[in-house]
């Protein structure tokens, strides 16, 4: 039976059919749906871990105990998990362990577009890269086998267009593995003290030599012979674009992107006229081909940025021009949802003209005008540490004008150590934890402070107030972000205190429970003075009707309004009032 599956669903299906027993992840676009799909299988233990490092370590423990295990993360998540990854390469494994790295060329939902094939090379780990959902499933299954055959963790790299494109996939049955699940002591293998690690490194090098041999003949590397005037070496999603643009060209499709074959490439190069390498992001295959002394044309340097896409390939090889969007065209940037509990806090931060060290999550959208109140965004948990560093160098009167904002899930991921550092090293700062009780940006996954597991089971609920107190923060207050005046007053108080002050908001993401929405608000045109104060909230439900100098009362779109009431609080003319009844019953 064939089904339309995204790359992420196909990876989950592959893991399931391969007898995978353990799966862990921290949510991150474009990888999130892998664990969400796996969680539906009763045969697989699955978990949202607090961060990617923990996810990989937990998967490692399962793999050391002979289970096939999988850890999934987005490309930047591998940075967090890099510490265990590099040494896991040395220990090798018992049960197959597969690490999914979901890269995001084009940065659709990421802060950089690093090419994670470099990790496979640096950590000396085999890496597979599928070019569609069927291969995503097949390669996942093969990755478990390779991991066991070569005693190595295996990386499987996807990109956004593989992860989030749906294609037909053949569905098979799960094979339950007949093996003992036990951790068998083997200190020389699993205890990486220097003496053991030195011996393991020799084995790692030997393993990579064997895998390089495997690369010459493996099923994952495919030669497609067609016309021989042009030959293309390609991998991943770029293969599909090449097939689209150059249906007649001969292709060497690389599925095992680390280690790369040598003889296979030499033979292919010898059989074709002009040789090209088409790969997204960095010129990794291109450099390898050149290192073999083979003449090859790689993509222009500017194509290292962003997705490669069929049009770029057409322009590069066939010299066609790329049709561009008209200069007048503007994409609507993503915005904070109507009724978002973060909005009021950013409105207050904006009014108070504070510097805001930001973090990774929905609230990063607070950077956009009119809220315009995020001043840094680099990596998970960095807000607090940025504020600590800044507070130690700027003059005292500026220190408390500095605020760190971080979401609940991000705080648990890697903000707690930042807070410990802030208190321990006597920083002077205000931390606002925007607790909306979910991992909202990725679609609302539970985490330790939600009290629910990925399978929806009840569990211990981490208490953020107590965590902050235990870290040594003495001033910890819970605030209602829907109360503008109180929130602003609390921020002002916190920024006047010495030392580390923590404010924790207490309203859930309004996407979690739509039944909690209030009736929508409306603007009474009689009372409205068209001062536009309500528009400073940047709520997408409030529509500006003024044109040029012409003033007009704004309007509230009742389909979008969640009735959070913030706009009613900023209107000085009492023009914004709740509608008597909800007009829309379908949401």
């Amino acid at each position, binding site marked *: 039976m064939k089904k*339309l599956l995204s790359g992420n669903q196909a990876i989950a299906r592959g893991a399931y059919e391969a007898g995978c027993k353990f799966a862990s992840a921290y949510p991150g676009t474009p990888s999130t749906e892998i664990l969400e799909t796996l969680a539906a299988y009763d045969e697989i233990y699955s978990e949202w871990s607090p961060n990617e490092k923990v996810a990989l370590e937990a998967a490692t423990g399962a793999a050391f105990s002979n289970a096939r295990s999988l850890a999934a993360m987005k490309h930047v998540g591998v940075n967090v998990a890099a510490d265990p990854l590099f040494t896991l390469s040395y220990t090798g494994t018992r049960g197959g362990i597969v690490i999914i790295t979901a890269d995001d060329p084009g940065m*659709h939902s990421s802060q950089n577009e690093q090419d994670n094939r470099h990790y496979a090379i640096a950590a000396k780990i085999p890496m597979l890269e599928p070019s569609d959902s069927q291969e995503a499933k097949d390669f996942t299954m093969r990755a478990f086998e390779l991991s066991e055959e070569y005693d190595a963790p295996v990386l499987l790299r996807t990109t956004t*267009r593989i992860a*989030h494109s*749906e294609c037909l996939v053949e569905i098979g049955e799960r094979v339950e593995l007949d093996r003992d699940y036990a951790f068998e002591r083997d200190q020389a293998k699993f205890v990486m003290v220097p003496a053991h690690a030195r011996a393991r490194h020799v084995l790692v090098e030997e393993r990579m030599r064997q895998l390089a041999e495997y690369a010459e003949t493996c099923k994952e590397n495919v030669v497609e012979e067609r016309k021989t005037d042009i030959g293309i070496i390609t991998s991943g999603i770029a293969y599909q674009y090449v*097939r689209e643009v150059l249906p007649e060209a001969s292709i060497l499709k690389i599925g095992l992107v680390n280690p790369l074959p040598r003889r296979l490439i030499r033979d292919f190069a010898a059989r074709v006229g002009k040789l090209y390498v088409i790969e997204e992001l960095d010129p990794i295959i291109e450099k390898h081909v050149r290192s073999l002394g083979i003449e090859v044309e790689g993509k222009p340097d500017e194509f290292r940025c962003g997705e490669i896409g*069929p049009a770029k390939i057409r322009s590069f090889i066939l010299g066609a021009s790329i*049709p561009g969007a008209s200069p007048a065209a503007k994409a609507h940037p993503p*915005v904070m949802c109507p009724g978002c509990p973060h909005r009021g806090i950013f409105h207050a931060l904006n009014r108070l003209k504070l510097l805001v060290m930001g973090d990774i999550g929905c609230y990063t959208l607070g950077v956009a005008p009119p809220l315009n109140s995020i001043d840094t965004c680099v990596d998970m948990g960095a807000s607090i540490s940025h504020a600590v560093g800044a507070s130690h160098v700027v003059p005292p009167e500026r220190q408390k004008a500095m605020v760190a904002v971080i979401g609940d899930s991000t705080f648990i991921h890697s903000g707690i150590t930042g807070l410990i550092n802030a208190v321990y090293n006597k920083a002077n700062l205000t931390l606002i934890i925007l607790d909306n009780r979910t991992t909202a940006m990725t679609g609302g996954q539970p985490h330790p402070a939600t009290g629910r597991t990925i399978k929806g089971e009840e569990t211990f609920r981490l208490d953020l107030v107590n965590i902050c107190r235990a870290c040594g923060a003495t001033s910890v207050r819970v605030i209602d972000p829907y109360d503008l005046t109180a929130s602003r007053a609390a921020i002002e108080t916190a920024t006047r205190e010495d030392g580390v002050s923590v404010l924790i908001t207490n309203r859930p993401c309004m996407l979690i429970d739509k039944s909690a929405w209030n009736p929508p608000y409306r603007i009474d045109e009689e009372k409205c003075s068209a001062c536009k104060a309500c528009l400073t909230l940047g709520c997408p439900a409030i529509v500006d009707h003024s044109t040029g100098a012409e003033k007009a009362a704004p309007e509230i779109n009742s389909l979008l309004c969640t009735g959070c009431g913030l706009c009613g609080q900023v209107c000085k003319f009492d023009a914004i009032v709740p509608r008597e009844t909800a007009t829309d019953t*379908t949401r």
Partner: protein
Amino acid sequence: MKTTKILIVGVGGQGVILCSNILAHAALKTGHDVKKSELHGMAQRGGSVTTHVIYGPKVYSPLVEEGYADVILALSNDEIERVKHYLKPDGVIIKAPDALPGRLKNPRTLSVAMLGLLAKHLDIAEDIWLESIRERVKEKFVALNIEAFNIGKEQEAINKE
């Protein structure tokens, strides 16, 4: 049989993803190879949304190439300018007629009504469309959406700039 390449554009929350799911499954039921590409995460927070649906005997790229789209289906007219360069020279842009939202019992069914307009340009049988809608829409909204689909089919699309 040729390959058909469709872009669906709108803003987050309009139902672009639902729309492309119904289309992709309708094409699948018709016996085509299908690929569909969309974005999740940051790209879904009320901002511009584009999905690509391609079907035919054998589909390679899940992305429509600039200059090769047969149809652009626009749930929001503001989004057309942004993707117009994807259209092939004799391609078709399907916009929502001004009168359409007013004819719908519920404005949230606009995306499915737009499929009704799209259906007139594609070789997919009526019963397959309906089956695909039934499978993809929450049960209690099926009747409402089928009605919207039929209203969409009655509309005259404004399809040239």
